[in-house]
């Protein structure tokens, strides 16, 4: 057996070509004497990223090496896929044994485009970063891109699918931003992720997790989680359709597909437990692509000086900019829009939202107050600001900032410290204790969670109502997504000190129906405890289960909906559950409507009515229906069938019929 190839290269063995790019973290150079993946038609060009000297002290060489080794550890299909979709680190580069950078594949040419210049003397080849698409159509067409709404949705769909698979491999992107997402629309719509070294792999990071301005998870939320990626995916969806860099209102997606707007709303929830999976995004985007407009962005129609829109969003013509001879403003070109979903289709879409909302309850990513947060505490926005070495000098804090002019912030007075960092005071309050609940936990153990959003604080208890029960434990990982597929999981707690993840299930005082899923059957008396039961006459079928809400108006569009049940959790509405229910009637007469044809079999009190889908094959037609029990007089001379559930008399019926 061959020893595993150690993907480490000495710097002096590289023949470097031109510099391709420069950022706060380092510079990227061509490499003339290396190829990657020679099996693939001669192999791929290679580039070298050298970390800036300023970031080397915070670099984790082992984490970088683990990335380079990952490709060899994955199965062949996953490895090939990962290298197709990302510029994944292929080898670590060292100088005298010290890690200074890494090799990766060059960006495939289909993720570049010919940038059209203003003075019309040709074009330059540039990376097709998503940032170009977050501007009005006149700009997009003006720089030489041909992109339709369908293309946008299809690229987004590919990104959603990509995130889903990355998450499955234990990789979260973290700094998902328009700068490190590339797109191609030909030969097919797809995305490509660069800055892959910044991604989080199985909880580890190479450099402190950074975020791009306007692309940050909510204050206080842990960076680089799967749920954080979904948050940013939703931002991208909104902004790709709004053609705007900072839009955040999901309503803009309604014109394309109402289901996408709903999905974005869930995804942008500050409570990450409520966010859906990227897989659900992929599914809905695929549906939206089918009906979306294929008309590409219009080319600029005005060639006169300065007649482009002054304002970047569609607020209508703004007031003229001062000081210029060219102050006219026109509204941005109208965006093409897709069709809206049918009413029935909306119900069907809502059904799958509900299903996945159940599944994503597992992304309840609090992390233990005991988790080692050393790397997080060191986090800075390293990629967002140029390293001092890259620049001549900077304007440091202005001591003489003008306090009388609050509306004009100095460059140095708008910043705030990294909100994701735990406050320094956490440390003294949180010493290791002899009885570490996470370390001691077993499947079946129960805890109260006294923590606040983002930080669990577990306290052992009996398995009573209101407690969380451990339903599974994953060792050797801190990946909060590990619990995603665990039944009844409501919250995941990771501890890097113990290198384990606990999957916790909330013990609702309302009964086991709290964890019911779509299609399950449940029963309980009004005000009593509700359990999951086998389906039968007189109990309820779950049409939809919504997590994090008690708003039963969500149920009204479900066919056969006639009852709802909520489980409310007073201290954490994110744990609320709403079940939309349908009574299981004895036969099809229960939901029959006037003029519906049914097949009656048996007679008298034993008669059964079945909807066979054809009037020709039926023998009775429904002539009326009332929600009263034994309302014989309501039916006059017609035949009737009646039924009443014991605990829910309001759901009784009398259905009148006539032989055909």
């Amino acid at each position, binding site marked *: 057996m061959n020893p595993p190839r150690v993907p480490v290269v000495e710097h002096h063995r590289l023949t470097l070509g031109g510099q391709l790019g420069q950022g706060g973290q380092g510079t990227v150079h061509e490499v003339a004497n290396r190829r990657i993946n020679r099996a693939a038609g001669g192999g791929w060009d290679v580039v070298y990223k050298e970390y800036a000297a300023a970031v080397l002290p915070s670099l984790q060489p082992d984490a970088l090496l683990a990335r380079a080794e990952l490709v060899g550890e994955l199965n062949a299909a996953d490895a090939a896929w990962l290298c197709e979709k990302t510029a994944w680190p292929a080898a670590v580069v060292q100088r005298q044994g010290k890690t200074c950078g890494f090799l990766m594949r060059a960006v495939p040419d289909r993720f570049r485009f010919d940038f059209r210049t203003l003075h019309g003397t040709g074009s330059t080849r540039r990376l097709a970063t998503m940032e170009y698409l977050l*501007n009005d159509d006149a700009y997009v067409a003006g720089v030489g891109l041909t992109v339709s709404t369908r293309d946008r949705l299809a690229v987004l769909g590919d990104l959603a699918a990509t995130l889903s698979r990355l998450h499955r491999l234990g990789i979260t992107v973290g700094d998902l931003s328009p700068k490190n997402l590339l797109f191609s629309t030909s030969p097919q719509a797809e995305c490509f992720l660069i800055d892959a070294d910044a991604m989080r792999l199985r909880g580890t990071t190479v450099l402190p997790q950074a975020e791009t*301005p306007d692309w940050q998870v909510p204050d206080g939320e842990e960076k680089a989680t799967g749920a954080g990626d979904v948050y940013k995916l939703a931002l991208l969806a909104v902004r790709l359709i709004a053609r705007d*860099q900072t839009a955040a209102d999901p309503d803009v997606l309604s014109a394309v597909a109402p289901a996408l707007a709903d999905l974005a709303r869930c995804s942008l929830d500050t409570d990450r437990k409520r966010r859906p999976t990227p897989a659900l995004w992929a599914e809905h985007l695929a549906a939206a692509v089918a009906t979306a407009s294929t008309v590409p962005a219009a080319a600029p129609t005005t060639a006169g000086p300065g007649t482009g829109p002054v304002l970047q*969003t569609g607020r209508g013509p703004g007031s003229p*900019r001062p000081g*210029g001879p060219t102050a006219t403003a026109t509204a941005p070109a109208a965006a093409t829009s897709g069709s809206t979903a049918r009413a029935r289709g909306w119900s069907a879409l809502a059904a799958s939202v509900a299903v996945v909302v159940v599944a994503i309850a597992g992304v309840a990513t609090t992390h233990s107050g005991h988790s080692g947060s050393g790397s997080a505490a060191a986090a800075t926005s390293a990629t967002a600001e140029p390293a001092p070495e890259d620049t001549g*000098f*900077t304007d440091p804090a202005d001591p003489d900032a003008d306090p009388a002019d609050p509306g004009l912030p100095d460059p140095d007075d708008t*910043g705030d*410290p990294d909100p994701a960092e735990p406050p320094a005071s956490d440390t003294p309050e949180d010493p290791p204790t002899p009885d570490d609940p996470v370390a001691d936990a077993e499947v079946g153990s129960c805890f109260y969670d006294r923590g606040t959003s983002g930080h669990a604080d577990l306290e052992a208890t009996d398995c009573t109502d209101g407690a969380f029960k451990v339903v599974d434990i994953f060792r050797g990982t801190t990946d909060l997504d590990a619990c995603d597929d665990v039944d009844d999981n409501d919250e995941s707690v990771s501890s890097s000190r113990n290198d384990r993840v606990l999957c916790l299930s909330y013990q609702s005082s309302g009964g086991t129906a709290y964890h019911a899923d779509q299609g399950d059957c449940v029963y309980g008396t009004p005000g009593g405890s509700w359990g999951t039961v086998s389906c039968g006459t007189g109990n309820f079928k779950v049409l939809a289960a919504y997590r994090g809400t008690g708003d039963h108006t969500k149920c009204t569009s479900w066919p056969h909906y006639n009852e709802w049940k909520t489980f409310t959790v007073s201290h954490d509405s994110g744990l609320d559950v709403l079940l939309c229910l349908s009574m299981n009637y004895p036969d099809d007469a229960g939901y029959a409507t006037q003029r519906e044809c049914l097949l009656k079999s048996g007679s008298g009190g034993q008669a059964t009515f079945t909807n066979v889908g054809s009037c020709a094959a039926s023998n009775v037609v429904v002539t009326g229906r009332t929600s009263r029990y034994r309302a014989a007089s309501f039916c006059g001379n017609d035949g009737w069938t009646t039924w009443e559930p014991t605990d829910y008399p309001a759901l009784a019926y009398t259905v009148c019929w006539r032989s055909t």
Partner: protein
Amino acid sequence: MSETRGVLLPAYVLADESGSMSPYLGDLSDGLTSLCEGLRAEPMVAAKLRLAVLGFSDDVQVRLAVADMRTESTLPQMVIRGLTSYKAVFEDLLQRIPADVQWLRGEGYKVHRPVVFLLSDGQPTDGRSWRSPHAQLTDRSQTPTAPNIIACGIGDARADTMLEVATRPEFAFVAKSGTDLGQAISEFFHSLTSSLVASGHALNSASPQLVVNRPEQFTMAIDEV
């Protein structure tokens, strides 16, 4: 979400259009083109900047009004003319900058302290008369929107003058003696673009800062005195 539409950096490029720049008009135009195209190709930076290009000589003329470079369809054109009046420059800015900031705020934006990049190829021809409007412009108690000024001198422009014009000693540069002026102009715009791109990123980060890159072939004026 945020009530404001974001924070913008107004940036003013003041280019010398006096007669002595005549041989370098091509370099000046090319430099402006690369600046505008460079910003247009960085839409995330362009969205946070409003660029104005002003030509100065006996007076100040607007070559590009505070613009989002994503929405411009033409490039600014410079016109060589007249002498080198610094007084005209600072009197113009004293009116222009507060008005522009007020306008941007009226459009719903917050505004970073404006930045002025001044490129001059000679000594002012208006003696010392420019010092008064300059002092008023840069005094933050008199002018709350007082800009940071970066001054780059080429040709006959002297280091001590650049130091007087710049709002910080580190913001004053002069071309190394013997440098080709066309090349110096080109380098000025190159570093201007990279400074604006870097500032555009940095101003919106957790630790906002104005980034000023020293142009190649230039030295910091403070090193000359």
